C-alpha cells in the first residue's frame, strides 16, 4: 500500500512508508480508494444489498409465482415485524454482545398486551405505551447484568430469556387470548396505501434508528465502542451507558414486535416468538453484514437481511419444501454468512 519513497518527502527522512510524489497524483485517486480499503469496503459494506438482489433475481427466474405483485406484498408484510426486532439486535451485536432473550420478550409482550387489551380493557394507546415500558425495563435488566455484573452477554440473556419464558407461561395460565378489541388491532392492521399500518410503523422505526445510529453522537460512540472499547473509553466514550442502552433498545423493540405479532394473528400467546424467532433475527442481522465481533452493522443492511431471509422462506413455501427443513437450512445460511463476514468485513 505504501507508495515508493521519493525525494519529495513531507515527513522527512526515510521511515515506515514514503509519501506519494507529484507524478503519482493522477493515479492517486484510484489508489486512495483502494488504500482506504475501498474495494473490500464496498463489498463488505454492501454484502446485504448484493445478496438481496441476487436472491430477487434468482427467485424471479427459477421460482414460479415469485415475481408477482401480491407475492411481493406478502413478503413485505412478513418482513415488517422482524425488521423492527432486527434493529435492536443489530445494535446489540454492534457492541459485540448478543440478546438471546429477544424471542422470549416477544412472547411475554404478546400475552401481556392481550391481557391489557382484553381483560383489563385498557385503551390501545395505553397498551402500546405500557408494552414499550415493559420492554425497556426488561432490556435495562439485561444491560445492567451484562455491564455491571460482568456476566457474559450470552449467558445473561440466556438466563433472563428462560426466566421470561417461564413468566409468560405463568401469566397466561396456559391459555391463549383471542378476539382482541378492534381499536387494539388497529395499531398494526389499519390499511394504509394497501398495506397494513405495521409496515409503515416498521419503516418509521427504521428511519428513526437509522438516523440515530448513523448521524448522532450516540451512534458514533456505539460504533467506536464496538470497534475498540479500550480506545473509546480512553477517548471519553461512556462504555457503561452505551452497553446498557443497546439492550434497553433491543428489548423495547422486541416488545413492540410482540405486540404487533399479536395484532397480526389476533391472538395473544406466551409462545409467540421464542427461540426460533431470536434465531431468525440473528440470522437476518448477520446476513445483513453485522459482525459478531462488534462495530460493523447498519439498520438498512439488517433490514435487507430480513427481506433476504423472508424471500428464502417465501421460495421454500412456493417450492413446497418442508418448513422444518427450512429451519435446518436457516442454520446453514447463518454459518455461511458468518464465514463470509469474517472474510470481508472491515475490522482491522
Amino acid at each position, binding site marked *: 500500500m505504501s507508495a515508493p519513497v521519493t525525494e519529495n518527502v513531507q515527513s522527512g527522512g526515510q521511515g515506515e512508508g514514503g509519501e506519494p510524489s507529484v507524478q503519482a497524483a493522477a493515479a492517486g485517486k484510484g489508489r486512495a480508494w483502494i488504500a482506504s480499503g475501498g474495494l473490500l469496503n464496498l463489498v463488505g459494506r454492501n454484502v446485504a444489498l448484493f445478496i438481496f438482489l441476487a436472491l430477487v433475481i434468482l427467485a424471479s427466474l427459477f421460482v414460479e409465482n415469485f415475481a408477482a405483485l401480491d407475492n411481493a406484498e406478502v413478503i413485505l408484510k412478513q418482513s415488517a415485524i422482524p425488521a423492527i426486532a432486527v434493529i435492536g439486535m443489530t445494535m446489540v451485536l454492534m457492541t459485540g454482545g448478543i440478546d438471546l432473550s429477544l424471542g422470549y420478550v416477544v412472547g411475554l409482550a404478546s400475552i401481556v398486551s392481550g391481557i391489557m387489551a382484553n381483560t383489563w380493557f385498557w385503551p390501545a394507546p395505553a397498551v402500546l405505551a405500557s408494552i414499550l415500558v415493559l420492554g425497556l425495563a426488561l432490556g435495562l435488566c439485561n444491560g445492567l*447484568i451484562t455491564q455491571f455484573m460482568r*456476566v457474559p452477554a*450470552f*449467558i445473561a440473556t440466556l438466563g433472563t430469556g428462560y*426466566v421470561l419464558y417461564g413468566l409468560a407461561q405463568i401469566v397466561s395460565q396456559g391459555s391463549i387470548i383471542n378476539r382482541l378489541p378492534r381499536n387494539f388491532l388497529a395499531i398494526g392492521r389499519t390499511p394504509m396505501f394497501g398495506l397494513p399500518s405495521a409496515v409503515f410503523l416498521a419503516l418509521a422505526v427504521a428511519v428513526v434508528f437509522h438516523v440515530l445510529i448513523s448521524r448522532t453522537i450516540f451512534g458514533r460512540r456505539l460504533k467506536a465502542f464496538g470497534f475498540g472499547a479500550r480506545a473509546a473509553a480512553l477517548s471519553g466514550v461512556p462504555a457503561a451507558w452505551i452497553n446498557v442502552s443497546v439492550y434497553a433498545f433491543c428489548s423495547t423493540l422486541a416488545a413492540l414486535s410482540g405486540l404487533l405479532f399479536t395484532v397480526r394473528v389476533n391472538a395473544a400467546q406466551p409462545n409467540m416468538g421464542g427461540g426460533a424467532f431470536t434465531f431468525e433475527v440473528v440470522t437476518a442481522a448477520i446476513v445483513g453484514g453485522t459482525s459478531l465481533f462488534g462495530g460493523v452493522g447498519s439498520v438498512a443492511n439488517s433490514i435487507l437481511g430480513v427481506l433476504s431471509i423472508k424471500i428464502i422462506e417465501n421460495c421454500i413455501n412456493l417450492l413446497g419444501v418442508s418448513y422444518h427443513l427450512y*429451519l435446518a437450512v*436457516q*442454520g446453514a445460511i447463518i454459518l455461511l454468512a458468518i*464465514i463470509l463476514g469474517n472474510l470481508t468485513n472491515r475490522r482491522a
Partner: protein
Amino acid sequence: MNIGFAARRGLAVLFPVAAFLALGSRVPHFLDLSNLLNVVRQSSITGVCAVGMTFVIVIKGIDLSLGGLLAFCPMISGVLMLAGINVPASMAAGVLAGTAMGLFNGLMVSKLTVPAFITTLVVGQISQGLALTINGGSSIGAFPDSFVFIGNGAVGGIPLSDLLLLGFLALGFFIQRLTPLGNHIYALGGNETVLRQEGLSAARLQFFVFGFSGFCAAVAGLLLSAQLDTVQPTQGDAYQLDAIAACIIGGVDLAGGRGSVPMAVIGALIIGCLRNVLDLLGIHPFMQNVFIGSIIVVIVYLSGVVHRQSELATRGTL
C-alpha cells in the same frame, strides 16, 4: 488437583442448595425409595450431557447444540430401528451422527474462529430442524424391546440408566484425571499461550472436546428415548438449560480452566432433585425454569467475584 479446588468452591454453592433439599425432605413422597431412584434415572440424561459439557466449559466454550442433538440423534436411530435395522447398528448410527455434529462444532471454533456460542446455537438449530424434518414433525415410537430395556430395565436391581450414568462419570473422570489429554484440556482453559509454547495444538483439543460433547449428547438422547419409548422432536429443549445449570452448580467455572466431571454429575443430580421437589410441590415446569435461570445468573456472578480475587499474581512492584 482440580477436584480439591472445585470441591471447595462447589461446596460453597452446594450448601444453600443442600439446605433447600433438606427442607424438601419435608415434601411428601420425596424420600420414597421409588421416587429417589426415579430422580436418579431422570437425572442420568442431564448427567451424561453434563459430562461432555464440563470439558467444553473448561476450555472456555459452551455447547448450545444439546437441545437439538437430544432429538436428532435418537430420531435417526429410531427411524432406522423402525425400518428393521438391528438395534446396535441403529444406535451406533445415532451416536455417530451426534459425534459428527460435535466435531463440526470443533471445526468451526478452531479453524474458522467462530465463537462457540453461535456455532453451537446454529448447529443445534440445524439438528432440531432435521429432527423435525425426518418425520414431518411428529413423534415416533414403539421401539424394539431391547432398546426400551436400556431406558427402563435394571441389572442386579440397579436401573440401567443409573449404570450408564456411572459409566460416563467414570469415563469423564478417567479422561480428566488419568490421561495426559486431560491435563492439556485444563491447560487450554487456563493459559493457551503456555499450551502453545509446549507445542500442543489447541485446535486438536477443541475438536476432541466438542466432539466428545456431541457424543455425550447423542448417548443421552438415545437414553431419553429409550426411557420414554418415543422420540419427540422437541424433547431436548428442557435438558439444554439443565445441563448447563448442572455444570455451573457443580462448580465448573465459565471463565475456564476449573471444574471437575464428578462435581458436574452431582450438579445434575441436584438439578434432578430440585425439579423433582418442585414437581411434587405442584410448581409448574415453567416456573421451575425461572428458578433455575436465576440460579445460573447468580452463580455466574458470584463465581466472577471469587475469580477476580484469586488471579495469578503478576510481577513488578505496581
